[in-house]
């Protein structure tokens, strides 16, 4: 859980038909490349991680295998809910065996199902919850607050509004740094839209579009706009009362 809190932020939010994942990609130095934090698991499922990236990669590989195996046997996409439970059970084993250590990574799993769009959070303890919106990683509380104010509208948001909200939530975690497409990654999955990561240019265009609007509205409007979509209470010490069970 600590490892997740130290990792750089990742956020997710969903409407009835789309789920958007976003994350902050800070490179260690100017010389190095960014770490990959969003993985495509299948056409209808993607995952954003926060914490030990190596553990995240291993779990993504597991998820991809499960999806492919299910698809081969049943010629049908694996329901996200089932994948998440399998993942959670895998994580739980590591908490009960003395010779193992827990996976040090929190996963935001976004996927499409027969029953609609879903966003789940899997934590190292083996718990998982479904969310309308959520943020994990360092300085995610700011994003969560932003999302909390806005999440009631997400169910009916359009896809583009959802992406905009995701970027604004990411901006909250940056604490004043300018939001550029080079430091963040956004991915979308939705009805009729397989999971894919938006390329830098598209993201920059969207940022430019709402930065201009933001300036016109004036700084006073920004706090309102920043309502976090993500359900809070994933991390300990949250100020919400019982919005979601504590993961301790």
């Amino acid at each position, binding site marked *: 859980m600590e490892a997740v809190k130290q990792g750089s932020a990742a956020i997710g939010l969903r409407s009835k038909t789309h789920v958007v994942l976003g994350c902050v990609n800070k490179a260690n130095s100017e010389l190095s490349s960014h770490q990959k934090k969003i993985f495509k698991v299948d056409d209808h499922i993607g995952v954003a991680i926060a914490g030990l990236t190596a553990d995240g990669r291993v779990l993504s590989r597991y998820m991809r295998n499960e999806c492919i195996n299910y698809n081969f046997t*049943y*010629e*049908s996409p694996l329901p996200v*809910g089932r994948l998440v*439970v399998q993942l959670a059970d895998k994580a739980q084993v590591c908490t009960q065996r003395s010779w193992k250590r827990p996976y040090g990574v929190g996963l935001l799993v976004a996927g499409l199902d027969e029953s609609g769009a879903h966003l789940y959070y899997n934590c190292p303890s083996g718990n998982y919850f479904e969310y309308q919106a959520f943020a994990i990683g360092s300085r995610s509380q700011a994003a969560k607050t932003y999302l909390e104010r806005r999440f009631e509208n997400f169910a009916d948001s359009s896809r583009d509004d959802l992406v905009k909200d995701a970027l604004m939530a990411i901006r909250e975690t940056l604490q004043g740094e300018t939001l550029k497409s080079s430091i963040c990654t956004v991915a979308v999955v939705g009805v009729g839209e397989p999971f894919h990561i938006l390329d830098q240019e598209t993201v920059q265009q969207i940022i430019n579009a709402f930065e201009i609007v933001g300036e016109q509205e004036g700084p006073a409007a920004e706090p309102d706009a920043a309502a976090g979509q993500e359900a809070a209470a994933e991390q300990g010490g949250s100020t919400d009362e019982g919005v979601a069970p504590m993961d301790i």
Partner: protein
Amino acid sequence: MKPIGKHSLLGASGEISDFQEILRYLDELILYDNMWDDGNSLGPKEVHNYLTRVMYNRRNKFNPLWNSLVLGGVKKGQKYLGTVSMIGVNFEDNHVATGFGNHLARPILRQEWHENLSFEDGVRLLEKCMRVLLYRDRSAVNKLQIAKITEVGVTISQPYSLKTYWEFSAFENPAQGA
């Protein structure tokens, strides 16, 4: 014929004991599916693919399940009809048959099937096919059941027989032209 889960129906010809074995596999499959209790359920396409995998793997091990399976179902308004043979050949079509049905019934169905058959017309068409099979397949008996699958569920009729006419002159002395 047996209903499978909420959405499908499986019919088989061939070795009945192998069919019973298949039903046991499917029982387990549906049981686990229900145990998830998460609003997702295995539809006819999934069951068909699962059966294809089973049949094909058994054939690869030179230990086939000696059945030809027909699987039909309706899920979320989508209709599905598919077949798997004992060697794992599988396909979907608007009309499928096993054994002699492939030779005798499918030509009739190709001529007379169309998208908008009503249930009664469908039954009549099937009975026509079954009658031909009854006359011409030496291993057929005059007892059949019709199963109906809709979004709501599956109903299988009671067994009944077809009216047949054996007074055709060709039947009276079959060896005449030989």
